[in-house]
């Protein structure tokens, strides 16, 4: 049966193919293939409402459970973790129906290419963004599961990180269904493959390591932590995140927001120490802007203090004159 599945998901739908839903009768015209996942392929398609990302899969079950996850986010409203679900339907080009679903099309480069183009300086802030999304997801009782740079896009023009593949999302307390070895706590011998917030935070730390070492490496021996921390210390960009990465890899953080806070702390500290800058183009200028903003703020504070002192002096003088007058 598996062989059937793989054959089907490998099948390519050329640009121009029109897909019509059996149940909701909506039409989609395929423009190009965006990528292939474990359970199917994602295409960019044109619909009445504009461009959408269309995931066409082989197994009804996996398509339905992914759509389920996307739907549960729609219910939970607001936060833009994953793409929103627009439609779920079957297409019947032959005897057998092919399940698919349509979701919001998120446009932008994937995380690895974004960071390799714009510089490692972006890694920290993007991971801080990611952690607040992860935190919201955890609060709703889910974990991302298969967190890796291929599943993360940086949306343009907002430069905001988004997750595009809901396939690995798992309810907290269950076993992790889908994972990639490099980002998997179990593979490195640093914890069970059970869905808890720590599982995601481990993957987040590995995402940072992957951004520094774009070529993923494999486990050398049984001491995964030692090997990973050695890699962290060797990389000039990663080194300053060492305390946060160590805690995430060891699983000592209780929540994503705790990790986010500490990472943010390191990033703001770094600003002054980092003026030597190994960072990407355009960055020093931005730092100047930020510096002057800080100065302005200080200046304003001083002004306030001066005004306060002046008022006190004037009032006391008035009082002094008044007391003379009475006498």
């Amino acid at each position, binding site marked *: 049966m*598996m*062989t059937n599945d793989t054959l089907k998901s490998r099948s390519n739908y050329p640009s121009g193919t029109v897909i019509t839903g059996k*149940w909701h009768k909506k039409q989609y015209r395929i423009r190009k293939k965006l990528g292939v996942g474990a359970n199917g392929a994602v295409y960019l398609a044109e619909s009445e409402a504009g461009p959408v990302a269309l995931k066409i899969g082989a197994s*009804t079950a996996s398509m339905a*459970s992914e*759509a*389920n996850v996307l739907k549960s986010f729609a219910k939970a409203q607001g936060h833009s973790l994953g793409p929103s679900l627009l439609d779920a339907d079957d297409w019947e080009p032959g005897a057998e*129906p092919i399940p698919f679903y349509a979701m919001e099309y998120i446009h932008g480069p994937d995380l690895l290419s974004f960071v390799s183009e714009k510089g490692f300086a972006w890694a920290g802030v993007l991971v801080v963004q990611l952690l607040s999304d992860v935190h919201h997801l955890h609060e709703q009782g889910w974990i991302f599961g298969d967190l890796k740079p291929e599943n993360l896009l940086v949306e343009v023009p907002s430069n905001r990180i988004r997750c595009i593949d809901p396939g690995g999302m798992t309810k907290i307390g*269950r*076993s992790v269904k889908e994972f990639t070895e490099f980002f998997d706590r179990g593979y490195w011998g640093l914890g069970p493959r059970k869905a808890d917030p720590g599982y995601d935070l481990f993957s987040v730390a590995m995402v940072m390591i992957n951004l520094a070492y774009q070529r993923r490496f494999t486990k050398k021996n049984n001491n995964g932590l030692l090997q990973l921390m050695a890699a962290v210390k060797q990389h000039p960009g990663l080194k300053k995140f060492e305390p946060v990465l160590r805690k995430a890899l060891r699983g000592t953080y209780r929540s994503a927001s705790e990790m986010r806070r500490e990472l943010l702390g390191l990033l703001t500290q770094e600003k002054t120490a980092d003026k030597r800058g190994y960072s990407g183009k355009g960055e020093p200028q931005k730092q100047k802007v930020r510096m002057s903003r800080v100065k302005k703020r200080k200046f304003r504070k001083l002004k306030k203090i001066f005004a306060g002192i002046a008022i006190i002096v004037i009032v006391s003088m008035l009082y002094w004159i008044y007391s003379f007058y009475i006498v």
Partner: protein
Amino acid sequence: MNAGTLKQILLITDGCSNQGGDPAAAAALAREEGITVNVIGVMERDIIDEKGAKEIQDIAMSGGGVSQIVYTRNLSQTVQMVTRRAMTQTIQGVVNRELKQILGDSASIEALPPEKRGDVLEVVDELGETVDLEILILVDTSASMKPKLPTVKEALLDLSLSLNARMGNNQFSVFVFPGKRTEVEKLLDWTPKLESLTSIFPKLQVGGITPTGPAIHEAIHYFGRKRQLRGLLPHDDERYFEESI
């Protein structure tokens, strides 16, 4: 719905059987006994030969299971994925049967409108998490498998890591073929943890023949023995799955 026990045979091999009966026939027999047969074909860099690939697919098809051919280095992830898919497949089969009983003959998950599928899938997911699992692992130890055995060991340890994160109980058992004196040899009796493989596996000797069919027969037999022993104890919840598969 009461969670019962799923039974699987996981066959790890790298080529054609050359002794004993047709392994696909043995797999069909297993299926009749309520045991799913999954097959993983492991290859080095070489191209898999047509005949071997076909046999691998045939065994899984008649065993009601899942098959996959992989490079040795991808083995860990494949082993756990194949096992999971086969579990989901079996559970879906059971759920579909239930749906037919409630909604009539044409009912299945596929026939439901997409909006209604979610709830059914939630049940399937829940069962996959809580059901008890018995996996008998059959490892081909013919001469050509020798360099792949360390990776097989790693993959099996990884499988137990994955499955033991579930809420349901697991029982694993490992057989190799050919054995030292016999066609098939038991390496590890039913156990919830596979860690003990670490000490046994390096000592394995490889042989020349590949008696895949007899190995599957022995596996079915071994499952049966377990059931007889169990039968002495009042243990009822297995029946559900056995009947419905």
